[in-house]
């Protein structure tokens, strides 16, 4: 269904690269203005190049649709079929990622070739392989997180305001807007433990070979969050479904 609305699809494609590009331009301007950063220009180029791929590959936009379907009763359609009610969300997210990656990767390759210095993410193949695993786990956590947030609609009906606020917080704490290494050092420990780090920043840290606390410990933390968020989403969904009122029919 991704191809049904061509204009909408193109805008979505553009939006995927827009945020990292704007962030990169802002940080470049800061460096040009003489900002004293703990990382160099090349790191920023590499980082935001990776953000454009990783944030797209791990992002899930299920919560607004799922919560709306709970509120207006559209969820009934999925509940009446002999398949997971989340099948639609899985299929849409996977389909979207395949299509977007197919279009985004050639753009990234061109950018890498055009940039004066070879970005740091183009490096050790072992890092790349581990980064792919981190991206897949991050995508699963992100999707479970979206289902958990959407499930709140069983109790609060309209959660869209909450979701918008969460999106802003997620943008900052995941490292999609600001690399976490540029955050105040006093917050370093807290930032390294919070779940949103494992949505975007952690896979990039793995790709660049710069994981705070080591790769193995980082993966242990990510798997820990997978269990917590996954368990929470199952609990909230199952408990919430008992309250479903199937409104509107």
């Amino acid at each position, binding site marked *: 269904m991704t191809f049904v609305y061509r204009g909408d699809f193109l805008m979505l494609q553009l939006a995927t690269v827009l945020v990292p590009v704007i962030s990169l331009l802002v940080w470049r301007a800061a460096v040009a203005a003489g900002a004293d950063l703990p990382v160099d220009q090349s790191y920023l180029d590499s980082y935001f190049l990776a953000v454009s791929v990783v944030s797209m590959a791990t992002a899930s936009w299920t919560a607004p649709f799922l919560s709306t379907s709970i509120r207006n009763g559209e969820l009934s359609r999925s509940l009446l079929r*002999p398949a997971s009610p989340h099948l639609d969300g899985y299929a849409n997210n996977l389909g979207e990622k395949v299509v977007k990656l197919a279009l985004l990767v050639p753009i990234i390759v061109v950018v890498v070739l055009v940039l004066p210095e070879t970005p740091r993410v183009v490096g050790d193949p072992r890092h790349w392989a581990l980064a792919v695993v981190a991206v897949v786990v991050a995508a699963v956590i992100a999707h479970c997180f979206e289902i958990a947030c959407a499930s709140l609609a069983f109790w609060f009906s309209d959660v869209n305001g909450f979701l918008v606020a969460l999106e802003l917080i997620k943008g900052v704490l995941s490292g999609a807007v600001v690399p976490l290494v540029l955050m105040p050092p006093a917050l370093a420990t807290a930032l390294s433990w919070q779940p949103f780090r494992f949505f975007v920043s952690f896979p990039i840290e793995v790709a660049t070979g710069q994981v705070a606390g080591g790769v193995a410990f980082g993966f242990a933390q990510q798997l820990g969050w997978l269990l917590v968020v996954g368990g929470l989403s199952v609990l909230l969904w199952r408990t919430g479904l008992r309250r479903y009122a199937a409104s*509107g029919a």
Partner: protein
Amino acid sequence: MSTKGVPTGGSDGGGVIVAQQLIKDYRRSRQRPGLLGALRGLVSRDVEEHRALDRLDLRVEPGEFVGLLGRNGAGKTTTIKLCCGLLRPSAGEVRVLGHQPWRREFAFLRRIAVVLGNKAMLWWDVSPMDSYLVHRAMYDLDHDDFARRVAGLAELLDVTTVLDVPVRQLSLGQRMKCELLAALLHRPEVLFLDEPTIGLDVVSTAAVREFLAEVNRRDRTTIVLTSHDMDDVEQLCDRVLLVDDGRLGYDGTVADLVARTSPDKELRLTFRHPPQLPAVWPRGTRMVGREGTSVELRAERDAVPALLGAAAGWGELVDLDVGDADLDQVMRDVLAGR
């Protein structure tokens, strides 16, 4: 209600749908009107429990075509939602095909189908055929059987030419027919229909009714229908269940419901010349209208033979029409508590 207390029908064992002492409570909030009310709502909210079903007992046997009737908010749609697993009972029990519907086991969902008149089951942005292909995968249907089934049902419903048109571009009638086609692809044993003819024109309504009657007769599909269109109910249903205030108020045939609620017969007598009507009407008879050479009477069933005998003496009788009150009138009487 005049029909309360009528024993509910059905025998033990073998029921496709069996509900016992079924209760469903909803929580709903009351909102104060206006800006001030909205601001007060931020601080305190009035939430109340609303009992939609109150110890409802019902039973549907295999192959029956049953109509669920009742006023708005009586509990008809809630009953359907409980039977197909969308809602979980607050108390009591409902079993459909031996399953507890709220568990929504795939083995159960494969055996039922639901058509909600005001909720699309087909995907809006793609053609019906694309939705059917997803349906085929979901229900694991044999490819050849699927193709034959789609072609056969599409021909019966006269939608062959629109199967590749996006659903959003179909007329209401075409969409409803395509919804019915989707619902029947996997040969469900029980079909729940909630207002399937709502908003349809006369031609589409007739086509849908004919199709449903055929499905019930040919495949022995058990069908439970809610409709505000009494013609739907009268033409299709073997039995009606009247739900009132969340309880079963009547369980029986349409004819029995009419007979119980409006026991009088309606007669229209047409004479060749203006008739000489009696000053005193026979016992149990009253005139409800007179126009030219025709007289409309309402008479108790037992009084009809004597009335017809007497009518021969009022003039030369050229036409006679005897019937029951129609279901629309009956429902108006029932719902008004008469």
